[in-house]
């Protein structure tokens, strides 16, 4: 009986199920992709370390964005290790970075996967790469590159190519290499050089990055590791290849993969919440329409439990089928996402997906659970109706909104707003309190939905009614007639729009703040930046050459320092403090930044306060090479956005610098030199150093401030999914309403409404509902964004609120489009309605 009922209502059921399918698909795709990436990277690392039984390396390391930084070892270790019994081969590895320029001069890669370079290792088992065409490099000036870079950059064996190490070096490509079956190591670019040139370009004389050891097979890797450990110097360690693989996997987990996974999971979460609301609304309408049916059943003797049971069985069937379809769709989606990643250069070994049982079970259970939760509430409500009441009532659903709901919603809302507004009373915990208040406001919005829906639809519908004639008026009243239903349909959009507005507010405020600070503190005219965050830096020679230009009065070469203070990573900037003080206004509060001598450090006010430091206090930085230096605080400044929390002299950093290179060169032009003259001169110099990008002040500020927005683009892209699900909910609600009102629509057609006008009426109702949801969502989201930005400002002290007006406008326009889109099918069905049949319907 239940199943027959379901089949009879299959159109509506399909609508409901679609939301579940999408939610489950996204969730399972995320989980499966995560597993697949884990296992693929695991495979990459295992393969890369397959021939390495033991690795000897410096024991200390510092984590950075681009992976762990580790000090070099003295080259003599290689011979010591080679003599250990059981060791067949010991190779001193020289590893660094080099960016390959394509035949058109543009850099290849460097936008994510590493740009590796190293000394070519002759031992084919230790070397993860193998030559696929040509030969290995034998002398300086010869190189092999990975086959993927070769094809991306249009480079063939025998060609001359330029690599930036960071200074541009010309090499003859004598061979191409592959990694296993693939043309690259998971998208990393690779340059293999003859050992002497590798040391010259990438390393330091008499040092190796680490030692890779292959055993002769007489002992286990662990035993070999222990034997080798006997001879390694202090501050160095020996680990097995398997341990190295495990460590690399773990690092990637915490880093890139972890971020990607949590990011995707957060969106799967939003998608599921939105889906749940959509489903709940559909079930509410369904159970209202079925009110008479179930009342009849109860009148003829079915118990409440039985009526409820039928509804729940229905939900289980829908939930189970939809979740199963969702799983299948999720696998497809995961494949698609993987292909997308491959398109971005992350070419992973192994075809297909790694499908384990647990993500499948989790996704299925969550999909089923969400459906059940969404279905239970309306089912309980409908089973509570006294049979006679439902039989008597002609209207399918009561439109009354309870006063208790209004009062409760108002109370929660006022409380939430108060908490958000007062969150900034004290500094610490402001964010937490603002977040809590935000949650309350959100709950209030959901609770008050049905209360607000009628007035909101009235206001939003007013211009429609005013300009679209009777069709507009009818659309407006239809949107107002059942506020609970309108609220239900709009709620999913409220959530989607609120999240977008929240992110957008945050983004525009951050972006604006950065813009403000940078334009206030940066007094230079030009900036030369390294391109790509995983590329090799700028040659130190570049800054010197620029400084010699007659057009240039001042240059600052900035280097990123990696160090720890009491175990916590810090990222100071090194450079020439005098030039910095000339080009930058960092709001120095104590001491003299320009006169900061070597051995002293300048720190921000914020860092000083957080760590209880003052002028003259000691601050010990531990570097990746295992050395530590104790600095004296010589200046305190206000603006930390540009250079970070600490500034030191380049001369204090150079001895610890593993790979010399600048991240940026700031340039001040001499008096009387026009921006264009200066730019042309600097660009010429830059050209000779691998052609990094030269930006003027405005371009630089735009880009730095725009980076936040770039990140947001990703967020928006994924939020489209939530809005898509919301749309399906809206379309579903409309379809149900159309079905319910078929007599009314038939009557309208009979007295002279054309098909086109009828479609237009449905469309406008949809648009009004969509705009109501979007406007409320944007309002709530912007308010919450404002509250959080304010809280952040109290805590961190630099953010200013900026209304993301363009984004909000775009979302609003999109929502109108979305409303039109959601109405396509319902409007089509309404127009197809047979007038006579509709009127004749009992």
């Amino acid at each position, binding site marked *: 009986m239940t199943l027959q009922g379901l089949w009879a209502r299959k159109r509506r059921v399909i609508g409901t199920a679609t939301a579940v399918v999408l939610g489950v698909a996204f969730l399972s795709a995320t989980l499966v992709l995560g597993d697949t990436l884990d296992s693929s990277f695991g495979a990459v690392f295992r393969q890369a370390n397959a021939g390495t039984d033991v690795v000897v390396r410096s024991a200390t390391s510092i984590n950075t964005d681009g992976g762990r930084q580790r000090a070099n070892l003295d080259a003599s270790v290689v011979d010591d290790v080679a003599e250990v019994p059981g060791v067949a081969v010991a190779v001193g590895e020289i590893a660094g970075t080099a960016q390959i320029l394509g035949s058109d001069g543009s850099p290849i890669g460097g936008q994510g996967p590493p740009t590796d370079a190293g000394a070519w290792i002759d031992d084919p088992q230790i070397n993860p790469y193998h030559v696929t065409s040509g030969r290995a490099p034998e002398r300086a000036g010869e190189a092999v590159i990975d086959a993927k870079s070769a094809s991306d950059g249009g480079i063939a064996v025998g060609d001359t190519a330029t690599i930036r190490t960071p200074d541009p070096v010309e090499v003859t490509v004598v061979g191409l290499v592959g990694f296993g079956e693939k043309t690259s190591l998971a998208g990393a670019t690779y340059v293999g050089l003859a050992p002497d040139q590798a040391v010259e370009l990438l390393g330091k004389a008499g040092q190796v990055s680490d030692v890779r050891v292959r055993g002769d097979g007489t002992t286990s890797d662990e035993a070999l590791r222990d034997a080798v450990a006997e001879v390694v110097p202090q501050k160095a360690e020996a680990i097995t290849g398997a341990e190295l693989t495990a460590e690399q996997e773990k690092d990637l987990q915490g880093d890139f993969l972890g971020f990607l996974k949590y990011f995707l999971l957060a969106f799967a979460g939003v998608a599921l919440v939105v889906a749940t609301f959509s489903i709940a609304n559909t079930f509410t309408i369904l159970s209202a329409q079925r009110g008479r049916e179930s009342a009849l059943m109860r009148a003829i003797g079915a118990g409440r439990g039985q009526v409820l049971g039928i509804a729940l069985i229905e939900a289980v069937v829908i939930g189970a089928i939809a979740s199963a379809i969702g799983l299948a769709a999720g696998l497809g989606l995961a494949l698609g996402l993987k292909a997308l990643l491959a398109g971005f250069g992350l070419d992973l070994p192994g075809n297909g997906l790694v499908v384990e049982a647990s993500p499948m079970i989790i996704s299925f259970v969550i999909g089923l659970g969400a459906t059940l939760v969404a279905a239970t509430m309306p089912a309980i409500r409908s089973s509570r109706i006294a049979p006679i009441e439902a039989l008597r009532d002609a209207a399918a659903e009561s439109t009354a909104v309870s006063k208790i709901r209004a009062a409760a919603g108002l109370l929660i809302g006022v409380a939430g707003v108060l908490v958000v507004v007062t969150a900034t009373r004290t500094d610490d915990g402001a964010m937490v309190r603002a977040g809590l208040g935000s949650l309350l406001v959100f709950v209030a919005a959901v609770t008050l939905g049905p209360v607000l829906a009628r007035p909101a639809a009235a206001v939003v519908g007013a211009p429609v009614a005013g300009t679209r*004639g*009777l069709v507009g008026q*009818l659309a407006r*009243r*239809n949107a107002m*007639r059942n506020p609970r239903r309108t609220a239900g349909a709009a709620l999913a959009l409220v959530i989607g729009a609120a999240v977008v507005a929240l992110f957008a507010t945050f983004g525009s405020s951050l972006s604006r703040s950065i813009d403000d600070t940078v334009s206030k503190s940066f007094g230079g005219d030009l900036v030369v930046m390294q391109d790509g965050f995983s590329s090799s830096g700028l040659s130190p020679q570049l800054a010197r050459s620029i400084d010699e230009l007659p057009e240039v009065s001042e240059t600052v070469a900035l280097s990123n320092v990696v160090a720890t203070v009491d175990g916590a990573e810090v990222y100071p900037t090194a450079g020439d403090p005098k030039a910095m003080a000339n080009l930058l206004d960092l709001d120095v509060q104590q001491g003299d930044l320009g006169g900061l001598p070597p051995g002293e450090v300048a720190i921000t006010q914020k860092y000083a306060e957080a760590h209880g430091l003052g002028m003259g206090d000691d601050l010990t930085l531990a570097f990746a090479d295992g050395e530590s230096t104790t600095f004296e605080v010589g200046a305190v400044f206000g603006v930390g956005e540009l250079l970070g929390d600490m500034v030191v002299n380049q001369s204090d950093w150079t001895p610890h610098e593993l790979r010399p290179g600048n991240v940026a060169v700031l340039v001040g032009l001499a008096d009387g030199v026009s921006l264009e003259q200066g730019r042309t001169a600097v660009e010429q110099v830059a050209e000779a150093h691998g052609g990094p990008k030269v930006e003027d002040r405005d371009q630089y500020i735009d880009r730095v401030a725009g980076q936040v927005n770039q990140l947001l683009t990703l967020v928006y892209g994924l939020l489209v999914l939530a809005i898509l699900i919301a749309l399906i909910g809206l379309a579903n609600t409309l379809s149900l309403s159309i079905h319910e009102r078929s*007599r*009314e629509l038939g*009557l*309208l*057609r*009979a*007295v*002279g*409404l*054309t*098909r*086109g*006008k009828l479609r237009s009426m449905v469309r406008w109702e949809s648009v009004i509902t969509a705009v109501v949801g979007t406007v409320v969502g944007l309002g709530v989201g912007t308010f919450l964004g404002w509250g959080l930005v304010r809280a952040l400002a109290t805590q961190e002290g630099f953010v200013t609120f900026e209304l993301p007006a363009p984004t909000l406008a775009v979302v609003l326009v999109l929502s109108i489009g979305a409303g039109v889109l959601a109405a396509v099918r319902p409007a089509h069905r309404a127009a197809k309605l047979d*007038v*006579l049949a509709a*009127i004749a319907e009992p």
Partner: protein
Amino acid sequence: MPLATTTQTPDRSAAPHPGGRAVAARTVDAVKVYGTGGTEVRALDGVSVEVPIGTFTAVMGPSGSGKSTLLHCLAGLDTLTSGHVFVGDQELGSLSDRELTRVRRERIGFVFQAFNLLPTLSARENITLPMDLARQKPDAQWLEKVIATVGLEQRLHHRPSELSGGQQQRVAVARALASKPAVVFADEPTGNLDRRSGTEVLSFLREAVDRFGQTVVMVTHDPVAAAYADSVLFLADGRIVDELVEPTASAVLDRMKALGD
């Protein structure tokens, strides 16, 4: 027959019939077939009728005899399988859905047995609905007159759910008349009403013909209701089988009994 006894003839496009009388609507050999093959039903089987302007015609017949079908086809709500329908001199068969909708809106009034009103509109808005749909300004004087005649002045701003069944049907009749249509079709307009409300609605339809020169065609089962009309057409199995002019309730009853045999 009280033919166009008033000066107010609302539909001026009505063509004089070859026979000489002005006709508001007519059918010629109207055939309507539902279904095909074994399940084929000839709901109309060659019906030719003429509805003169300014008359009140009742249509009677057993259930399933094709009364509603005839009305729907005359009103442009349904199309014929063969034959012709005219409203005034306009052939409906050649019109597109859009044009038909227009004809319904501008030249035809319709009163159904139930569910005549849009729940979201007030009584007044329901009455002016066809004009509003056509984006035409209602003739204010005419509207006043119609509303006064149905006695709804006090109820104009009520929603249908706040009106009794009789009041709702009176609103429906007012709506059907408000655009001064060529013909008003009413399909059992009193079928759901108690006797008193039914009488009100019927008197009002009669008044519309007598005082305003409107043309009304009404399907009914009730001999008393049929007696309000100028003539009664009897349908059986999709054919006109009889016609009674200047009917009385008892004459109608006698005729019905005769046909029932």
